[in-house]
Structures are given as structure tokens and as C-alpha cells.
């Protein structure tokens, strides 16, 4: 529950968007809603996955960001070529903190930038020859790579280069997987389509590689972690819990993941999907082709983690369920101590979120475990099925905003006065300068991991550190504070 009633909230939205010209007002109105947990279908209240209005400051990315930055980028033993001008790859290089184990530049390549560095002549004459040569150079310089992906930037689609033909040719020549990915930035309305395109390229070029090969010894307890990008190590803190309860994690998609793991995924018994938005596509495909069921889970905050662990265990036999209870019992004193310590310091504080993927709904439970309340949430690039899943998680008369604009977000914060905001780097300094405590929820503000029981301790500490930081009472200059002594002229 927020302090405002539904009517007041509606008036607030109206007031904020009033300044827009008529056309923009009409379109933005559909993206802002007041939550009603009783609804089943979000379509009745909020529109999502639509093109951002020109002139409004959006926080979205592009299809290339969704493919290279999110889905393919963390696959550590492959080289991902940013095919096109140098900027796209260089300015997004190593920004996402996808942790991995390996020696960078020898057998792992996540934080490096490989680009074909398009020049005018490549645009005029085509860049296929350059790509061909580039792959040869990569093979000479980094022979331990397991495969190559060609991530198209905008010009590739515009000039009509045939990267598929080059990829097929080079695949023959070097005998490794070469994946062309048609993720030109202009496709779609946000990075979301990039996820889809990347998933489709995995399906078409990678997944069936070991279909006729039974040499991999499987067990009944094989699972794959799907849609966990190991940002600050979150996939690891999830993995240890699954392994402790007796499951064997065959693959991590794609944080700290490898090409071999991806190829082996069709052999698992269950796909565990963390980020539904970016990897539901491949899970659906595997369910249909290989009859591998998939389920969503949530490892943020002890309540949700316990719930998810039990839900996962229920898919297996009694031995797993027993171990699952043992794991829960083992960590219970730990997380209870965390709650005992931090809950009194954070109780009743109100949070506004604006993130992407799964976090706008998944982290709500973690905040609630600390006695905090989420009064507004929104997705950068969510679809209506994301909002369907969000309605139930949020309280009555809380605010939902899809693809919120810079202006709207600022205004909402000014009026709702949350105690904490969780969003990204582009919002961080605006809100900190406005005097509102802020945590980046994309990169965990260079902290983390936040998954699992170990992660919850870090989460609680970080939230406390941010919210109860003494700096927030020092924002006003001493001579401007109420009750300050008037200065005496010297």
C-alpha cells in the first residue's frame, strides 16, 4: 500500500503528464498505471513493448546491446566480434561485470573488445572481405577460442553484407562454430528484440551440435541455469545452493558459460529460468524439441529463495527434497541474523524501482524481507507478460511505469518522495544530487552478488549503507540550514 489512494495517484499521473503535447500525452498515458493486484491481465491497465516517443528521454538500449551485451557477450570462451564501426563495442566493453573464471586473452575473452572497425571504404565496398580476414587474424592471435560470433551493428544491415555466407565459409575453414547474429541496433523498439534474435541464433547455430552424440554421461539431477549473467557473481551464488541440494548444474547461460555448456544443455532434465525476459525463447524451444520442462525461479531474498528452492526440489525425488530442507535449515540462522540486524534500521522505508529484465518484480521480495515497501516499479523493455507477473507482486495502488521518461521519473520521485531508488547508472547521479539515496540495481552498484542467502546478507548491508548514510543530512550548506547562526561581518 502506498500512502496515496487510487484517485490521488491517478491525479498525480495526470498532473505529471499534463505538460506533454497532445499526441505524446495520449501515448504516454497508456504506459503509466496504478497497480491492482486483483487483475489477471496487465493489458487492461498498461501498454508495454512499444516504440519510445521521439523527443522523450528513454533509458532503453538497442538490439545489439541485447545480443552482444546481454546474451552472447558473457559466453567466455567464444570471441564476439562487434562487426561494424568501433564505437558500439568499445563504449560497452566490460561494463556489465559478467564475472568469469579464466585467463583473459588466452582462453577467455569476455572483457576484450573485438571489432572490424568499419571505415568509409567498408561501407562503400562492403565489409565481408574484412570479416573474413578478421576471423583469420583471430585464429592466429587467439587460437584457444572455441568459437566466434559475428554481432552486427547497424551498418551491416543497411549495406546488406552477407555475414551468413562468410560465417559458413569460415566455419568450414577453421572447423569451429561461427555464428552470424543479425542484431542490428535499429531492429525492434528496445534491447528486447536483441535477446530474441540472440536466442534464435543459439537455436539455429549452436544447440543441435550434439544431438547425435550420447557420449556425455547424464544423471537424473542435471539442470541448467538459464538467464543468469553472473553480474558480480550472482550465478555462482545461485549455483552453490542448487549443488548443495544435490542437483548437478550442467550449464550456465550465459554468465561464466562456455560454448560446450550450451551445446550440452539439451541433455539436462530441467531448465531453471531466472531471467524470463531474455531467455524464455530458448527455453520454449528446448521444451518443444527436447521435451525439457522449464520453470522460473527467484533467488532474491530468503522468502523467495526458500519458496523457489522448494519449488525446484518438488520437480525431483525425495532425496533432493530432503537435501533441500537441509540446505534451508542450514542457512536459516544466517539469514535470520541478517534480518534481525538490518530490519530495524530499514523498516518502513519506501523504494521505487526502475530496471530491466526480471528485477522490477524479483527484488520486491528481498525488500519486503527487510520490512521495506516498493511503491513504484517499471520495466525498461518488459512485455505485457512481464507486467502480468508483476501485478501480483506489487501492493494495491502502487505505481507502474513502462519505459518511463527521465522527466516522468524525476517528477514521480519529487511527489512520492521514496526513501530509496533502485535503477541504473544514467539515473544515479540525478537522484543523488536531488538528495535521494540511490542504488544501481543493474550492476548492484559494483557490489553484489545479491542472489541466494549469501547474497541477501550483502544486499541488506548495501541497502543499509546507502539509506542510513550520514551524508543525506549534510546536503544543505550549514549556513542555509534552519537555525544556523547568521554570519557576523568581519
Amino acid at each position, binding site marked *: 500500500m502506498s500512502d496515496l489512494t487510487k484517485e490521488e495517484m491517478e491525479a498525480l499521473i495526470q498532473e505529471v503528464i499534463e505538460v506533454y503535447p497532445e499526441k505524446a500525452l495520449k501515448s504516454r498515458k497508456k504506459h503509466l498505471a496504478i497497480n491492482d493486484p486483483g487483475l489477471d*491481465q496487465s493489458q487492461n491497465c498498461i501498454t508495454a513493448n512499444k516504440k519510445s516517443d521521439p523527443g522523450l528521454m528513454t533509458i532503453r538500449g538497442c538490439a545489439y546491446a541485447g545480443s552482444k551485451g546481454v546474451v552472447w557477450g558473457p559466453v567466455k570462451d567464444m570471441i564476439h566480434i562487434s562487426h561494424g564501426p568501433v564505437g558500439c563495442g568499445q563504449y560497452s566493453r566490460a561494463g556489465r561485470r559478467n564475472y568469469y573464471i579464466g585467463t583473459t586473452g588466452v582462453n577467455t575473452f569476455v572483457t576484450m573488445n573485438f571489432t572490424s572497425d568499419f571505415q568509409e571504404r567498408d561501407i562503400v565496398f562492403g565489409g565481408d572481405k574484412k570479416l573474413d580476414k578478421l576471423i583469420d587474424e583471430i585464429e592466429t592471435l587467439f587460437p584457444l577460442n572455441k568459437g566466434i560470433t559475428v554481432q552486427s551493428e547497424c551498418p551491416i544491415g543497411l549495406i546488406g553484407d552477407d555475414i551468413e555466407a562468410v560465417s559458413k565459409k569460415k566455419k568450414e575453414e577453421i572447423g569451429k562454430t561461427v555464428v552470424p547474429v543479425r542484431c542490428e541496433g535499429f531492429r525492434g523498439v528496445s534491447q528486447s528484440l536483441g535477446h530474441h534474435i540472440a536466442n534464435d541464433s543459439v537455436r539455429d547455430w549452436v544447440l543441435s551440435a550434439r544431438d547425435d552424440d550420447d557420449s556425455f554421461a547424464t544423471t537424473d539431477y542435471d539442470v541448467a541455469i538459464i538467464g543468469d549473467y553472473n553480474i558480480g557473481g550472482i550465478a555462482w551464488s545461485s549455483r552453490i545452493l542448487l549443488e548443495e541440494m544435490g542437483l548437478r548444474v550442467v550449464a550456465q547461460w550465459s554468465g561464466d558459460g562456455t560454448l560446450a555448456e550450451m551445446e550440452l544443455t539439451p541433455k539436462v532434465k530441467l531448465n531453471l529460468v531466472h531471467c524470463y525476459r531474455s531467455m524464455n525463447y530458448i527455453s520454449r524451444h528446448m521444451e518443444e524439441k527436447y521435451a525439457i520442462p522449464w520453470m522460473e525461479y527467484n533467488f532474491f531474498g530468503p522468502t523467495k529463495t526458500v519458496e523457489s528452492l522448494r519449488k525446484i526440489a518438488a520437480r525431483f525425488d525425495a532425496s533432493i527434497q530432503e537435501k533441500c530442507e537441509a540446505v534451508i535449515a542450514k542457512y536459516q540462522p544466517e539469514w535470520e541474523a541478517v534480518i534481525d540486524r538490518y530490519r530495524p534500521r530499514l523498516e518502513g522505508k519506501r523504494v521505487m524501482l526502475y530496471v530491466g529484465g526480471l528485477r522490477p518484480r524479483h527484488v520486491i521480495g528481498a525488500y519486503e524481507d527487510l520490512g521495506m515497501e516498493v511503491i513504484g516499479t517499471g520495466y525498461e523493455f518488459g512485455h505485457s*507478460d512481464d507486467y502480468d507477473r508483476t501485478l501480483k507482486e506489487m501492493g494495491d495502488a502502487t505505481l507502474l511505469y513502462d519505459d518511463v521518461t527521465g522527466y516522468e521519473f524525476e517528477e514521480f520521485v519529487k511527489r512520492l518522495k521514496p526513501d530509496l531508488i533502485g535503477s541504473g547508472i544514467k539515473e544515479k547521479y540525478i537522484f543523488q544530487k536531488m538528495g535521494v539515496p540511490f542504488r544501481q540495481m543493474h550492476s548492484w552498484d559494483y557490489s553484489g552478488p545479491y542472489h541466494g542467502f549469501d547474497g541477501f546478507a550483502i544486499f541488506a548491508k548495501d541497502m543499509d549503507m546507502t539509506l542510513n548514510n550520514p551524508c543525506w543530512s549534510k546536503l544543505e550548506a550549514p549556513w542555509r540550514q534552519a537555525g544556523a547562526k547568521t554570519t557576523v561581518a568581519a
Partner: protein
Amino acid sequence: MPKVMIRKNANGELTCYIAKKDLEAAVVSIEHDRSDCWGGELTLSDGSVYYLEPLSVPPELPITLRARRPNPA
């Protein structure tokens, strides 16, 4: 003629996923759901209606099928 994927969700209800529209919606009603005939008109929870060529046996789910707009009656 979009491709749709029909699957059962955790509660055993039919859901329909339309890749082209990136839309996941519950199936509210299906015209034929018998052991000898499966398919026909499909109503989704968002109100849209699709037509699946009826199959002679209920398919193994999940399955991807071609759907088309219903015949204007």
C-alpha cells in the same frame, strides 16, 4: 499466418505464445478438444481469436503450429 506455440503452464492450463508478437496469453477457449479432434477456433485471454487447422489426435504439447485469422462467419 503467425506461428503459435501451445503449451501447458504449471497449473495445467493451455497457454499460447506468439513469437512474432512476443505475446504469451492464456487460452480461454478452444473449439475442439476431444480425443478424435483437436484445434479449431482459439480464443486468447486478450480477446484475440485464431484458427488452428483441427488435428485428428490431440498433439503432444508443447507444439508449434501455424494459426490463421478465423473465417469471417
